[in-house]
């Protein structure tokens, strides 16, 4: 197992080099650069040609991209992600600021999804084909096909505009800083309620159906018949014998959701004015903020690789037939 992880990590380093080099080359070759992007935004405050050249030198835009990439790598090796051009603060700090809000939404949503999807999936297995299960199945399927941005706008209109019981957008209210601790928690909770709902309902439908489909297959296996022949109760057969086997594909899925925990959603964060990673990435691309884009790319790549490794390791943990070597 340890050998396997070491080998995978070594391959991961190679993959990371390839991804970052590719992204670096690509962004350097799309039209526009940070300096022209900034100039385009500040139409009234034109800067001189010399200033522009000086800035380009500063940001290594005068060097060919492979050289600049190599320099970026050597900075990275010293633990320096560079400084955001548009915001003039270190990229590491920028990411650190934005990670919290995104993580708040995604982890709450993920937790909620699993807490609801597992019982719903098991219930659907036992009640398969009954009218109530069919109703729930259809409902979840309809939710699954409803785009999150439509639901978000709809929820905003109903809860924030018409009924005015939940905040429309943002992460905190105006008097957030003056509130006591529990007041702050409550404020955050109210603000997070609609975004978390939008994050969750589609995944819930997906996971419930995923669990149900896998369970349906597992309960046809011979060893389920063996358990019944032993006199195990139907509940124990479903929860212990069948679900334990469904866990195998489920944990693989879990590992693969790891990157999405931090990547956030561009559209939902925009709609709810949530100061998260999705918005940061989107803005950084518009601003041609190369250091920020690279910092985020590096982080997402790392998470994706870690997620895949985690999925494979978890797979071996829950399935005794798999040994990693």
């Amino acid at each position, binding site marked *: 197992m340890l050998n396997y992880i070491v080998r995978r990590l070594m391959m991961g380093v190679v993959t990371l080099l390839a991804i970052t080099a590719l992204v670096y080359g690509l962004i350097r070759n799309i039209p526009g650069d940070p300096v022209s992007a900034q100039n385009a935004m500040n139409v009234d405050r034109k800067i001189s040609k010399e200033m522009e050249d000086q800035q380009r030198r500063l940001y290594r835009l005068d060097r060919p991209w492979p050289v600049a990439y190599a320099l970026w790598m050597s900075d990275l090796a010293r633990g320096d992600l560079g400084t955001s051009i548009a915001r003039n603060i270190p990229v590491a700090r920028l990411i650190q600021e934005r990670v919290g809000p995104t993580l708040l939404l995604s982890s709450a949503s993920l937790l909620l999804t699993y807490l609801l999807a597992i019982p719903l999936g098991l219930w659907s297995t036992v009640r398969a084909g009954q009218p109530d299960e069919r109703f729930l199945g259809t409902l979840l399927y309809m939710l699954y096909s409803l785009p999150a941005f439509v639901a978000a706008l709809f929820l905003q209109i109903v809860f924030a505009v018409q009924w005015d019981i939940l905040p429309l957008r943002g992460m905190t209210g105006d008097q957030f800083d003056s509130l006591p601790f529990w007041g702050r928690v409550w404020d955050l909770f109210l603000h997070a309620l609609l975004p978390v709902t939008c994050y969750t309902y589609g995944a819930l439908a997906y996971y419930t159906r995923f669990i149900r489909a896998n369970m349906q297959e597992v309960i046809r296996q011979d*060893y389920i018949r063996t358990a019944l022949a032993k006199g195990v109760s139907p509940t124990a057969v479903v929860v212990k014998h069948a679900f334990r086997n469904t866990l195998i594909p489920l944990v693989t899925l879990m590992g693969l959701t790891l990157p999405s925990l931090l990547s956030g959603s561009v559209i939902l964060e925009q709609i709810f004015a949530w100061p998260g990673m999705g918005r940061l990435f989107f803005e950084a691309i518009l601003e041609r903020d190369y250091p920020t884009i690279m910092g985020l790319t590096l982080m997402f790549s790392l998470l994706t690789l870690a997620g895949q490794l985690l999925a494979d390791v978890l797979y071996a943990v829950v399935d005794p037939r798999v040994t990693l070597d």
Partner: protein
Amino acid sequence: MGVAAPVLKIDDLRTVFGKPPHQVIAVDSVSLSLAAGETLGIVGESGSGKSVTALSILRLLPAGSSRIESGQISFLGRDLVRLPARELRRVRGKEISMIFQEPGTSLNPVFTVADQMAEAIRLGPGGSRKEIRDKSEQLLHEVGIRDPLRVLASYPHQISGGQKQRVMIAMALSSDPKILIADEPTTALDVTVQAQILDLLRELRDRRGMSIIFISHDLGVISQIADHVLVMYRGKIVENAPVLDLFRSPKHPYTKGLLACRPRLAQNARKLTTIADFMELAPDGITLLERTLSPSDRKKLESEGRPPLLHPGSLMIDPTLTGTEVSAATKPILEVNHLCVHFPIRKGVFRRQVGQVKAVDGISFKVYPGQTLGLVGESGCGKTTTGRAILRLVPTTAGEILFEGRNFLNVRGSTLRQLRRRIQVVFQDPYSSLNPRLTVEAALIGPMRSHGIGSSAKDRRDRAATLMEEVGLSTEHLRRYPHEFSGGQRQRICIARSLAVEPDFLICDESVSALDVSVQAQILNLFKELQSRRGLTYIFISHDLAVVKFMADMMAVMNGGKLVEMGPAESVYRHPQQDYTKRLIAAIPDDSLEMIESRLARRRPL
């Protein structure tokens, strides 16, 4: 024997699948009774309703698709058909236990043996953690597992098929059941392991005085254990007799057919009798008409077809052998020299090779045109790997494979394709070796097209139609998909597919092991017919020495990747040199009357 009151009595049981009008009556008015300590054998082919009867007893059939329509199953004063689910659970595994056909899939793969045994014991007698542990160990010991502690700590995939079935039996015994239902418990196992499991069941039964319902498609196996036999055919019981009477004077033509279709070691038949020799369906599709084999028909079974074709010089060694020799001038069609197939064991970060599994370890043999070489041995002996190496489906570590004098291992490109066409294979499992999404026609025409056989699309279709008739199916079947066929029919399709490219060499890898004995006989006869019609050369691989002896001219016995014995099939059987070969021969169920009599005499009175 009939004095004791029955523990289980089934009256007029009717179990159906599906809803009208597509309803299938799987079990039709079945009545039986099982005395305390008695072993009841139920025999019949796939679809005869024997397993459905067994599953009906504990109501283990899938609830959605099947139901018990009428009848009574009385077990010690309770009617199991109408017993509330909660009370039925107290019967399951405690008073009536069950073991199944596929030990490989019957244990939950994610729990250790200890967990699964503990669950059974907790549901039954119960006890403290330590007591449960001790009881598990003692039960495994009782079912003949020599290292119970290791097996307890293992997951199912870490132990062998025979051990898994022993674990299943141990689990079934955990609550001292009155009845053990064994549904084809040895069908998925090697003959040698089958013999051990039968010994074990007999011994447990006698020691514990429990009743057994033993289900099998093979009367030979039933003869080893049953006191009383029920023969089922198309959902009905067609014969019901004490074992000795049944073997001495079978009444129903179907029983006679089942008795006759198993290849027997002592016989020198060239063709096997099949069920169809004993009965046929009347044109109304319901009534059975009995047929009798005339003495001249019987004679023909021994004289029709060619005598064994032996390696040059065989008759000089043993002149009593029947058969003819290949002329000394004939060149072998296939020559295998010092073939080795080793699989590397890799370890460490850089996956350095630290050892190897010697699946095939330096074997050599020759096959002459038109001959059949039988490869026999237990699971894991390397016989299948040998077949695959010859087909170049696994890489060879060392040695050479000469096909008509040319080293098959060195050819590539179009020469390789040409040779691939000439060497074809028929695999073991007809269920998984046909693509479920291809019609039979597509499965037959695909290989023809890729090897450029047939002049036009129409010609290829005609060839496919001819092939279907050649393997005993009809032209209408071409448009159908594999799931519409029975196991035997599928194997015929697999054979037709391999013949579609006009090969001259066929490797049959356990091609009849997954089939019922009655179907096995038909397929074996088909292989022989095809050989004489097309002049095919076979390598016939099986774990069943009786089957190999029937099919093969020359027999090679493999063990641990090596050839331990080789010679004319007849003399390997008559004068086995190795203990291993003797064990393989002894494992074949012997259903002679003397054997059954002596077994019954040793049986303690009930």
